[in-house]
Every structure is written in C-alpha cells, then in structure tokens.
C-alpha cells in the first residue's frame, strides 16, 4: 500500500515535470489579454476557490448557479479546496501549466509569484481605482494586489487577526480586557483558576504560531527593518526585536495554554472548538472565524474581540494590525479573460458582497458598503472597522516572504513551542534560509 502511494505521488510529480518539459521549459510571456473586451457568454469557466467545506462552500455554488441562469451558455466548473489544500493544488496546477480561468490568491509573495511569472492578467483597465468597478472596492484592498502601478487581483474579502474572548469567562475571573501584552499574560492565572484554559491554541499545522509571531514582530521590530527582512536580497534579520518577540510568544504558550510545549500536537480546529464550547477563555482568530466561533455554546452577545496587546517598550509599530485581504487572480493565458472578469464583477456586486458578509458565511467583503451593522454579526462588523482603521496591515508571515524563509519560520515556530530551539537558534536558522534564498 505504501509503495502504491509513493509511486502514485512520484508519477504525479514526474508527470507534472514532464508536462512542463513538453512546453519547452522556457519562460513564456503571458499574452496581453484584453480584460475590457466584450465577453463571449459561452463555454466553461473554471474557478479554484478556497471555500471548501461548511459554511462557505455553498457561496460559490450559489453564485455559479445564478450566473449560469443569467447566461445559459456558460457552464461554471468549481474546484473548491480548503485553506491547507489550496496551496498544493495551486502549485500542482501551476507546475503543469493547467491553472483554471479564475484562482484564489493571498497577497504578498504568494500573489507576486503569479504576477512575476506572467500568470495573472493585468486588470488595470477594469479594476484600477479610477474605473467604475474599482471604485466599488476599498482602496487599500485594491492596492494589496497592485504591482508597479498595475492592478491584478480582485479582492473578495478583508481579514484581520484578533484575540476573541468570552465575556462570561472574563467576568467570572474578574479580568479586564488587557491593554498590554504583560497584562494579557497576567490574566491567564485568574482565568485558569476560574476553570478555563486561558488561551486555546493548536499548532499542528505550524501556521497558527506564525500568526502570533507576525503580530509580535510588527510590534517589536521597526517597520522598515521588517519590510526589508521579508525580501532575501535585503534581509539582515539581526534586529533584537525578533528574539524578544519569539520569547514573548514562548511565554504566552507556556503560561496561557493548557498543553504548553505539546501544542504542536493539537489541531487548530480543536482549539477553535475548545473556545466555541466555552472551555477556553480566549482564542487568537481571523475575522473569517468569528461567526463559526459563536455557532456553539458561546453566543454572539458573549463574544468580544481585541487586538493582541502591545508589549511594553516595543520598538516596532504598535498600530500595525496583522491581516490582509484575500482575493482572486485571472489566468493571463485563459482564452476567457473577459468572461472571467464579468463573473467576478457579478461575484462582487453589492448584493452578492452583502450575502458574503452576512452569516453563515461571515466573510467581510472588500466592497464598500457591503459590511454593515445590520447584515453582519457585531464582531465581524467591529473587526472590519478596526482593519479599515489600521494605518498599516502586517501580511501573514507564511505568504509575505519567499517560501524557503516562510518554511524556516514555520519550523522555528514549532521549535519554540516545543522548546526544541532557543529564540536565537530559530533566528539563526531563518537567517540561513534567507541567505540560501538570495
């Protein structure tokens, strides 16, 4: 059985390699697709989403059905993946030159790779900030997918990371919402005495640690240094703020979680459930998770959020909030670029944007006016207001930098959690990965 699994995997890798080899193996300039052309409303439009599973999967299914009803000659083929599986799927499709017409993307280095490789259509003529469609989006979300004055991405929803807390747990433990990182750590003792796991945390996939680390890096490392360190060409990774942040994270894991150094063995969804079921008092989560967190024992009225508090004497930017919009790119090599643009205009119409922002989806749309106090849950509305207010967003650590460095941070985060490496050693390993990636 093992041998069959590996043979299949090897064959897939080999076939992906072979297919690319057949294409000549040289960089291919993307054809200059006219995104503003009149679409031909016929054929099959393929879309790769990150909305697999509940509660998000029906969103694109409903959109596809409604679009096909408007344009009966158009068939929409959906490939729905999860947050974890979409990464592998996209890379496999990229390697075999088989990207769908429309595909999901994060911002940062993730989107840059597709833009640099000529795989993302230039949409400036249709979604630039001065265009009719572009004006419907928040300017910051459009800018997140812009490179050298050109606009490539269609931002679908905004996102930010906040500490969600149970008001009842805080009340029972007589704890106030912490204003500093030190107060947050100090609150863990009383919360534990009150019968709660202070902070639910599961790091089996590695990235939950990166989310804490990126927010703490933003607080502890000066912005300009942090920005330079994301690119291997300019990275030095010598700022003492990194070690400080890594140690702060270790303190949080050891003092505020029940599993402590063993949290690498806990699924993030188990932590999410512990919070939703009232066993944990806090859980560091994305806006996208808010409505899910209040679908169990924890009720919306009992759910509050606050930005991860800033540590004392931090040398970075205390106003920087971790988060970024997520969106879609259009395959530059697609013969249906104009049709793909039309579908995404439909997907981001105010009506559909409002549906996306409301429960059960709870994905705060980047379309202006789509997230209101009436159609979104209180927490989602509050969260997106804070994201919009933040002067600068810190993009996820696993997508903002090159994959080798992101992977070194991921392993380092796991090592910090388990106690397998000191903060200095972790930083050294990341520096080595960054040097190798130059």
């Amino acid at each position, binding site marked *: *059985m*093992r*041998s069959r*699994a*590996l043979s299949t*995997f*090897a*064959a897939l*890798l*080999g*076939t992906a*390699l*072979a297919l*690319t*080899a057949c*294409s000549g*193996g*040289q*960089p*291919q300039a993307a054809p200059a697709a006219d995104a503003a052309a009149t679409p031909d409303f016929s054929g099959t439009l393929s879309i790769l989403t990150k909305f697999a599973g509940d509660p998000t999967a029906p969103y694109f299914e409903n959109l596809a059905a409604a679009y096909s009803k408007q344009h009966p000659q158009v068939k929409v083929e959906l490939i729905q993946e999860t947050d974890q599986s979409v*990464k*592998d799927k996209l*890379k*496999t499709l*990229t*390697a075999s*030159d088989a990207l769908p017409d429309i595909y999901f993307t994060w911002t940062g280095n993730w989107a840059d*790779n*597709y833009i*640099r*490789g*000529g*795989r993302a259509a230039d949409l400036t003529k249709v979604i630039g900030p001065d265009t009719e469609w572009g004006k419907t989006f928040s300017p910051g979300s459009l800018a997140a997918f812009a490179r050298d004055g050109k606009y490539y991405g269609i931002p679908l929803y905004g996102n930010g990371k906040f500490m969600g807390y149970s008001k009842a747990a805080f009340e029972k433990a007589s704890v106030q919402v912490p204003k500093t990182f030190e107060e947050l750590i100090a609150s863990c003792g009383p919360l534990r005495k009150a019968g709660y796991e202070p902070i639910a945390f599961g*790091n*089996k*996939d*590695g990235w939950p640690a990166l989310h804490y680390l990126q927010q703490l890096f933003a607080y502890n490392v000066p912005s300009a240094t942090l920005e330079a360190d994301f690119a291997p060409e300019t990275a030095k990774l010598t700022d003492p703020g990194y070690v400080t942040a890594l140690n702060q994270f270790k303190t949080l894991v050891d003092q505020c979680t*029940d*599993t402590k*150094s*063993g*949290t*690498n*063995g*806990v*699924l993030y969804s*188990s932590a999410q459930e*512990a919070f939703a079921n009232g066993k944990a008092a806090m859980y560091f989560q994305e806006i996208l998770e808010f409505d899910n967190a209040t679908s169990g024992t924890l009720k919306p009225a009992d759910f509050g959020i606050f930005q991860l508090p800033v540590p004392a004497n931090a040398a970075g930017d205390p106003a920087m909030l971790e988060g970024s919009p997520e969106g879609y790119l259009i395959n530059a090599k697609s013969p249906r670029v104009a049709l793909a643009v039309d579908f995404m205009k439909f997907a981001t119409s105010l009506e559909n944007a409002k549906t996306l922002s409301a429960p059960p989806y709870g994905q705060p749309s980047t379309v202006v006016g789509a997230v209101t106090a009436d159609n979104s849950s209180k927490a989602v509305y509050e969260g997106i207001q804070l994201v919009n207010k933040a002067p600068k967003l810190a993009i996820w650590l696993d997508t903002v930098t090159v*994959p*080798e460095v992101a*992977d070194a941070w991921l*392993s*380092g985060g*796991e*090592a910090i*959690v*388990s106690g*397998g*490496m000191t903060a200095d050693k972790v930083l050294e390993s990341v520096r080595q990965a960054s040097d190798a990636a130059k």
Partner: protein
Amino acid sequence: MRATLLRRTLGLAWVVPALVLVGVFVYLPLVQNLQFSTLKWDIYSGSQEYVGLDNYVKLADDPIFWSSLGNNVLYAVVSIVFQVFGALLLAALIESVRSQRWQRVLRAVYFVPCAISLTVAGLLFYFIYEPNLGPLNHALAAVGLPELAQAWLGQESTAMPAIIAMSQWQGFGYSTLLFAVAIQRIPREIYGAAAIDGVGPVGRFVHVTLPLVREMTGIMIILTISGAFQVFNEVMVMTAGGPNNSTQVLGTWLYRSGFVRNNFGYAAAIATVLFVITLGIAIAQLWASRRRRVEW
C-alpha cells in the same frame, strides 16, 4: 520461416501498447526526473536554469535530508524487529494453537489492522495520541501513570516513535499472515520427529521453524526495508514532517521541498536518491528470491 517471422511480429505487436504505456508513464518520468534534478526551476515563470550537480551538493549539506534518511533507517530497523522477527514469533505461536478454529480467529484478529488504509489509520492514531482528548493519555491516567501522558505527536522526542508504533500496529498482521502460511507449508512429520527426539517447543522453533522459513524471512526483510524507505502517507497525515522537521522522511522532505518550498529541482534530486536506494533494495530482493529454495 515467413510464418514464424509473422508470428513473432504479431506477438511483438501485442506487447507494444503495454511497452509504450510503461515507457511513457514509468520510465520517461524517471529519466526526466534525473534531468530535472540538474535544474533550478521556477514553476511560476517556467524558467529552467541548468545547475549541474548543485542540487546534489546542496543535498549533501542539508541536515534535514540526513535526519530524514536517519528516520527512514530507524523505521526500517524497528520494522524488521517487529514486522519480521516479532511477526514470525507470533505466527509460530498462532500455529502452535491446537484448535483450528482459534487459529483462524487469531489470524483474522491480527490481520484486520492492515485492511485499514494507512491514511485512515494515521487519522485514527492522530486522535489516539491527541494530548487533551486522546484515549492514550486518558488510559495512562486511569492506570495511575499520568506522568507519562504527553503530546506524543507534538514533541520532537516522541513524534517519530509514535508514528513508527502506529505503522507496526498496521503492518504487523500482514507479516504474521505470510509467516503463518510459510509455517503451514512445513511438513508436520518434521515437528513430530523432533518431538519424539525430545526437542521442546523452543527447540522446535529454533531448529525446525527458523531454518525452514528462511526464504520467507529473507524476502520479508527486503520488503520491510523497501517499505520503510517509501513511507509517506502516515507521516503526512499525522505530523506532515513536524514538529521542527523531526519526523521528516525522504518522501515527505521531497514533497515539502517541491510543493511547499517551490524548489522542484532539489525535490527531483531527493527523488533520485530515493530511487537509487529503493532500486538497490529491489535488486537485492530479486537476488534473494533467485536463491535455491529449501525443498522437502
């Protein structure tokens, strides 16, 4: 003469489709993998730069490659102990049970785990090992050993042994069944003669069973080593190589290098090394299976 030539040509025509399929889907990717291991390949732009043996040099300096190889070797050693010698011992015990019905029941009991797919078994054991909700830690606490409870898959020191333990549970029954079949082939008269000569059960196992299942033991050792170098599913499901790369094996490090780190040329170099290792084992297997059989 012409008829023979025609027959031969027709015969060849029958095997050509199979040869083409095997050539395109097995041997061509192998050759191309070798070619890609000499490239630095950017999957986004499609650019490919020839770097010669750089990926192999990098591989020799990569501590994670060596720790992955070490994990494969550890996997092989433990598997030989449990899935070969342990299974042989268990098979001998089962076959010594007098009741035929109980023999069949025991064989079935031990065989059931290997009927479960590795992915499902991996998930099952992930939940067994889960530090907060998993039954293993609860069982340890219930028998008065709470200090032994830990995050089995969450710590560098215990993650790999925990995965290997699951794999032994899963593969043990298959080996046991094969050994049971091998033992059944041994004529009962030999055991009878040994018993008449006053040889006890242990002596019969050492002097009769062991020599007469030597051929099966050799094949099982080679199959087990080969399997240990192709481990992938269980590690991906249970830890994906973490924490801190402590459970990486060659298969998962290959995957991570290509699909996570975007370094497909380097992944191809790992694949080549893995291929050479498994090819060596396959050749050893062929050699072992050609050795003269024990006849009786």
